[in-house]
């Protein structure tokens, strides 16, 4: 990937991370940690990979995205705003009573949200349904989803894994955001869902493991997924929870907490510095 493109993507990802901090700071609640860990993946999906048009968010031919780990809505909203689905100023209304930006994604209220999610495990099934519908209708759109690593403790994730493999949904690509932390602690200590690669392989998926913060690795994995026939692809993305804000990185306490005034200023300063 050339330096210019890498720089452009880094700028976009920085803006999205700033959007996450803006949203959760103004909401005084929300989930910054897991939002920051998926910012690079979302950047690449919405600015390079997916066939979408913010001016026509309901285009039947568009690619679909499902945020199965719906609590990281601040990252999705920041991405959609950055892509032009709605004004960036909306981000400061996150979780407010008169805002379209609900605590978890609401497809009825927010332009660009393809599926209502929030209850873990349900989104990946919906994404598989969208992919199955494309097969049924002979449509060539693709479906993308992001799962949480803690989310993979939900039984429904494995029901969906069986279903997607059974129906040979090679138009479905899911990322598993492997940041290693969930609300109560390390995923390996709360309820170890590992190893994800062997499990998804055994369920009949094509599995690729990458660094979630490398645009080159994200790009290569998505390109590889396009060549896979007859099975869905799971991209296991090793990530850093809280990525980009030093005091949030790898801290379980930042799963579902908003920054205070001081933390907000520091987070924004760090992010702006990073992008320079």
């Amino acid at each position, binding site marked *: 990937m050339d330096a210019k493109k890498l720089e452009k993507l880094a700028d976009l990802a920085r803006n999205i991370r700033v959007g996450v901090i803006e949203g959760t700071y103004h909401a005084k609640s929300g989930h910054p940690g897991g939002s920051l860990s998926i910012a690079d993946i979302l950047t690449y999906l919405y600015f390079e990979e997916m066939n979408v048009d913010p001016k026509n968010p309901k285009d*039947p031919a568009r690619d*679909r995205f*499902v945020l199965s780990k719906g609590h990281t809505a601040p990252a999705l909203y920041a991405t959609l705003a950055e892509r032009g689905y709605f004004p960036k100023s909306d981000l400061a209304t996150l979780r407010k009573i008169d805002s379209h930006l609900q605590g978890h994604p*609401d*497809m*009825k209220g927010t332009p660009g949200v*393809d*599926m*209502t999610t*929030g*209850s873990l*495990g*349900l*989104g990946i*099934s*919906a*994404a*598989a*349904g*969208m*992919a*199955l*519908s*494309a097969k*049924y*209708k002979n*449509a060539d759109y693709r479906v993308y989803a992001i799962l949480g690593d803690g989310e993979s403790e939900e*039984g*429904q994730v494995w*029901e*969906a894994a*069986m*279903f997607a493999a*059974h*129906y040979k949904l090679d138009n479905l690509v899911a990322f598993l955001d492997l940041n290693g932390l969930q609300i109560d602690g390390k995923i390996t200590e709360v309820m170890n869902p590992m190893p994800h690669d062997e499990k998804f392989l055994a369920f009949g998926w094509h599995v690729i493991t990458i660094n979630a913060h490398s645009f080159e690795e994200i790009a290569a994995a998505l390109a590889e997924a396009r060549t896979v026939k007859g099975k869905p692809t799971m991209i296991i993305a090793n990530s850093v929870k809280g990525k980009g804000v030093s005091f949030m990185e790898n801290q379980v306490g930042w799963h579902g907490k908003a920054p205070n005034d001081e933390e907000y200023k520091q987070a924004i300063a760090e992010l702006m510095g990073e992008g320079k």
Partner: protein
Amino acid sequence: MAEKMATREAYGNALAELGDKYDFVVMDADLAAATKTGTFKKKFPNRFFDCGIAEGNMVSAAAGIATTGVVPFVSSFAMFAAGRAYEQVRNSVGYPHLNVKIGATHAGITVGEDGATHQCNEDLALMRTIPGMVIINPADAQETRAAVEAAINYQGPVYIRLGRAAVPTVTEEGSFQIGKGLVLGEGKDITVVATGYMVHLALEAREILAAEGISVRVINIATIKPLDTELIVAAARETGAIITAEEHSIIGGLGSAVAEAVSETCPVPVSRIGVPDCYGRSGTVPAMLEYMHLTTADIVARVREVLAKK
């Protein structure tokens, strides 16, 4: 009364018949032979998707399909469609108001011998709490076919409750409309508001009581939600007492819905016939109906009881 047929069978037939006229797909969770979606599968194998024994995934996947403009019918036993997958119905289908149709068979105690684990007496209560959910509990085969077609033509989630046991046809063609109850027998002394399997028993009770000079109005409520409040309140006003009859818990189903409507608008005595606050057990359909006091004789007795206090 015409030949008997279970509403689940009418459902399978309706899907197969209407598949020619409308574009929809059908999903099942390894129960196609029992829910009768197998009838559709045989005719339209490419439009049928078995989801295996994984009802939660089936319902959320159906929601995903619905977002793409394709209408899915999902089927399983009521215990699993409304019970196991309640949260998926609420969050994947109900909250985004997606165009998913749920055909839930083997509802209530007329499941019979399979026993309490499979006798879902709670589905109407569960589904009623979901905003925007249309709930239809057809009384017979004719009404089932009409309900399936109405569900296809309605934009939004619909739950259709279906039974395993055969029932006679008591409604006339062209009579079904979402949200509209039907007066199947006029009467002035008391009203029996019945739904699903209990409708034909209510009509039998009406005949018996007529011979004693008691005039019973029988209303068939196929649409549990939205409820035909107008028809029910008019009956309350005109007959002064109401008995509800359903093959469902007396908590949260038709009885509750009618009591809520009547108490807020035209308070008259409302007496509920249904499954009391208990679990079922294994037994034949007639044995189960007797065990739960859901027979024609039980309706007759309840009418006399309520009239004695009126």
